[in-house]
């Protein structure tokens, strides 16, 4: 099982947001780190099939081959966008049930998964409250829950820890590490500490290109230090 990015490019009228990025991603947690504006979100949107690349392809290979535009591809995808949106007047449980319907889960499975995930993300007691009453952290946890509803093979998390307190971050890291055993988890962040303990592989991005692609173990030093050194070297 692998996700292949082949010379993936996104060019806007006056800027190249992602510049011929290639990678073969295997199951595990992949930390995508880079400063704001590096092209992380654009890259993730292209991987999710919601932003058409100017060039290049995204393909999922698992025996057969799936293109990013196919329904079957979306069936194995989980996505938490950076600017995760919600319907203010929906209750947390209703929102998850809606997302489950979107992801093609039958009613019985959807209900079971929703209950299970509401417990995992610690929203059990707030499940029947309107989302507009949730704190930022609660909304983010709801976003995480919706992303993993369909047990995705590819899980894309764009700045998932924004708004989470320390305790929630730890809980979240454990969940991600667990999911990374069987799935390709791409976790984008500009906070290095979010990924240093759980990422199997690090992709560093700057000006639309990968400036580092390697295993975490290969780094051999504190990730934050390494990150700053790599960026300085590029400059």
């Amino acid at each position, binding site marked *: 099982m692998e996700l292949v990015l082949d010379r993936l490019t996104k060019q806007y009228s006056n800027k190249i947001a992602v510049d011929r990025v290639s990678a073969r991603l295997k199951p595990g947690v992949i930390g995508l780190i880079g400063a704001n504006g590096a092209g992380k979100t654009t890259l993730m949107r292209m991987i999710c099939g919601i932003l058409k690349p100017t060039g290049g392809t995204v393909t999922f290979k698992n025996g057969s081959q799936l293109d990013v535009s196919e329904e079957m591809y979306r069936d194995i995808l989980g*996505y*938490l966008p950076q600017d*995760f949106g919600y319907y203010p007047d929906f209750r947390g449980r*209703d929102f998850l049930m809606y997302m489950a319907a979107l992801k093609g889960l039958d*009613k019985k499975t959807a209900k079971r998964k929703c209950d299970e995930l509401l417990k995992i993300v610690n929203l059990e007691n707030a499940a029947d409250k309107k989302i507009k009453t949730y704190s930022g952290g609660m909304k983010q946890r709801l976003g995480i829950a919706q992303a993993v509803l369909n047990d995705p093979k590819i899980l894309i998390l764009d700045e998932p820890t924004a708004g989470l307190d320390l305790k929630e971050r730890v809980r979240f890291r454990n969940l991600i590490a667990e999911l990374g055993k069987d799935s390709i988890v791409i976790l984008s962040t500009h906070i290095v500490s979010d990924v240093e303990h759980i990422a199997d592989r690090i992709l560093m991005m700057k000006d639309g290109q990968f400036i580092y692609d390697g295993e975490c173990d290969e780094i051999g030093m504190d990730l934050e230090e390494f990150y700053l050194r790599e960026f300085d070297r590029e400059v």
Partner: protein
Amino acid sequence: MSNTGTLYKMELKKILMKKIVWIMLAIGIVMFISNVLPIIGENNIVFPDGTSMSVYEAIRIQKNTSESISGKKIDDSLLNKMRNDIRAFLADKEDLPYKGRNKSDTYPGIWFAARKLGYEDFMTKLYNQFGDADDPNKKIMECTAGEYYRMVRDNLDYTFENEGVTEEEKAFWIQKFSGSGSDITYEYAAGWNEFADPFVIYIWFAFLLISVSLAGTFSEENAFRTDAVILSAKNGRTPVCLAKLWAGITVAAVEMVLIIGINMAVCLGTYGIGGWNAPLIMIAPYTAWNITVGQAFTLLIWLSLVMSVVFAVFTMFLSRLSGKSMAVIAVQFAIFFICLFSIPNNQGLISRLWEIRPTGFLNIYTFMEYRLFKIRGSYLDVFQMGTVIYIIIIAALIPVICHTYKHMQIKSR
């Protein structure tokens, strides 16, 4: 699983959770009901002899008298019965200061008598035909049934001429009219008449309500920033698009039924439910359509439902293309405003097509429109042409919405 049912319910919920929809619907209900408030209120009709009665009482008297003569052919016998009752009533009231409500002084007080005796509805049917005569009251009180039927036909010819109807079109309508023009049965249909008069206002209101309800169908996903998770989900493309369309169409149809239903209930509840089987001429005096009031309303209500689908699909089309709810509402209001204008009859096909504008052709007056559309040797009236055009519009817009949504991309925020 495509989960169409669940997605449909969720889309309905998204539309119905908007407060503005309920506020606008409530305003509409209050506005329509307030139309009849003066009737059930304290407003009294004061007569020249110093007596008075409430409007509600006047309606009740009119209903009783009208129902007693309902089902009778308009002939000399019926005309004389009305006249004798009026003359008898006015016999000892020669010194009343009351005058007729028009130019005539020949029969002062006959409208006062008609209201007191409940003949106002029947007399209005006569007045509708003789209204342009030099002395309409005299005609009402002296004409024979033959003169009445000749006047009906003359008025029809005048309408044809006024509209610039061709000889071929005229022949088409005369054929429809034959059989109904010399044998008109009076039926009390005041409830339907009151319901019919502002029918186009119901359509306008429905148009605005549907616009407000559905403007955000697609665009709000961008505003709520839910578009990314929806579009990246398995059923986030075609199934969601179809669920949105079905939910939008359902809401639009229900809103149209509610608006029409509330107004129908208010009018029929106030004026009486009778008249379903009355000839259409009872509420559309210059019509050549040989159909009943019930048949005319069945047609209007079905077409209103078609139009609700058109409004819904068009609103959702704009919502999909513009991506901004306010832009959708602004465009709809602009269309609504432009539709208030009319194009003179002498502008040929343009004016004929203009008659089919969304807020133009769904009213009782369209049964008095005689210009036709000739297509491959067959004539289509305004209703038929409107139905064809709007079904084509629906059939064209739905695939465009689905196609563009299927390939929709996230815009940078």
